[in-house]
């Protein structure tokens, strides 16, 4: 499930997207650079709880976000345990989880349109180097919305194959999936043009 904007009215929601993104980036960086000790793992957890409380998003949403990344937690911890002692393994997993969940605050409290506007503004100095900020923002928006569509297309391809008795296999799946994905890309291109995107 992708993190999506949750309506709210706290000061953090009203804060402009650019400075908010910068502030969260600093917090995420701070958490990421903590030493790999139990006390720092606890500190990362504390900062995360504090961030959700101060922002007004609340601990229920924090719980939802942690559940949402449960497989990342499991996989990160499993690999860490294989290669490093228990203390750094747990601390690293805690830092990664805290970084992801704190970063999610940005999307939870900011409409994508405002994020894109902030991104466009932030990238404006790079126009002189040939960068097109509006296009980059649009690509990001389309990428965010295309994930659930591709998932649905993949399920559709698999179901159609199962209905015809086709055995699961990488090649037999990838080719029809590519075909329907390209068709979707074509249709999406038309929709973008129709809505005024050149």
């Amino acid at each position: 499930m992708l993190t999506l904007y949750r309506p709210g009215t706290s000061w953090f929601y009203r804060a402009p997207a650019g400075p908010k993104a910068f502030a969260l980036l600093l917090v995420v960086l701070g958490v990421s650079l903590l030493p790999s000790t139990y006390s720092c793992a606890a500190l990362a957890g504390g900062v995360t709880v504090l961030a959700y409380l101060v922002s007004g998003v609340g601990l229920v949403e924090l719980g939802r976000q942690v559940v949402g990344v449960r497989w990342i937690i499991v996989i990160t911890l499993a690999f860490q345990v294989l290669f490093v002692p228990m203390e750094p393994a747990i601390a690293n997993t805690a830092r990664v989880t805290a970084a992801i969940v704190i970063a999610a605050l940005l999307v939870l409290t900011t409409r994508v349109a405002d994020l894109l506007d902030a991104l466009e503004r932030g990238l404006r100095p790079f126009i002189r180097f040939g960068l097109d900020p509006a296009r980059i923002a649009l690509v990001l928006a389309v990428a965010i919305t295309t994930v659930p569509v591709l998932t649905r297309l993949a399920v559709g391809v698999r179901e159609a194959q199962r209905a015809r008795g086709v055995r699961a296999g990488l090649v037999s799946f990838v080719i029809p999936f590519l075909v329907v994905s390209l068709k979707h890309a074509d249709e999406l291109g038309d929709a973008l043009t129709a809505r005024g995107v050149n």
Partner: protein
Amino acid sequence: MTAPIILNNVSVRLGESLALDDVSLRLDQQRIAVIGSNGSGKSTFARLLGGLVPPTTGSLSVHGVDPVTQSKELRRLVGVVFSNPDAQIIMPTVAEDAAFSLRGEKLPKAESAERVRIALEEFGLTDLADRAAHDLSGGQKQLLALCGAVIRRPQLMIADEPTAYLDARNSRLIANHLLAPNDRRLVLVTHDLTLAERCDVAVLFENGRLTGVGDPAEIAARYEASLQC
């Protein structure tokens, strides 16, 4: 007076096939139905008017604008709704997707928000404003697509089989929105002859050729007669 839709000897070649073959017509009615079998050229006709495909030969004018040389002007005049609701969602949430259509207009934030509010209300999407657009039902997604087109206040709405993916209830809902009395011109590509008969004029295509223009009931009857095996 010049007709709003004029085609002069227009042909469209897509790859090896001739999708439209030497079509000439003038249309000034408000609600125009486009009917014909699969592959007859009706979607190409709609895409041509919407500036999504250029003519290979011939010329056309849509509300006084040449879609080939004046594509920016055309975008301001025309809204397009396609059959597949999933392929028309650009932004993650319902309100953001509706607002996306206004990004090019550089409106003040308050005005943009007000237009989004009004449009969502018109299409019964207000309560879904913050929902993930891709979690909506097919009918709701198509309403959102229509909302995204109407919010730009186009003079011409092109709907290419907008009810093709929908159940009877949602088809009726979408059709009622499209055919509701308003100032917009409508070009409705459809296989549903009852919808075609609610329009002011019908255009019939067969194998890329224009084979009839006139009273929707007569044209629909002629089309049905041609289907008898």
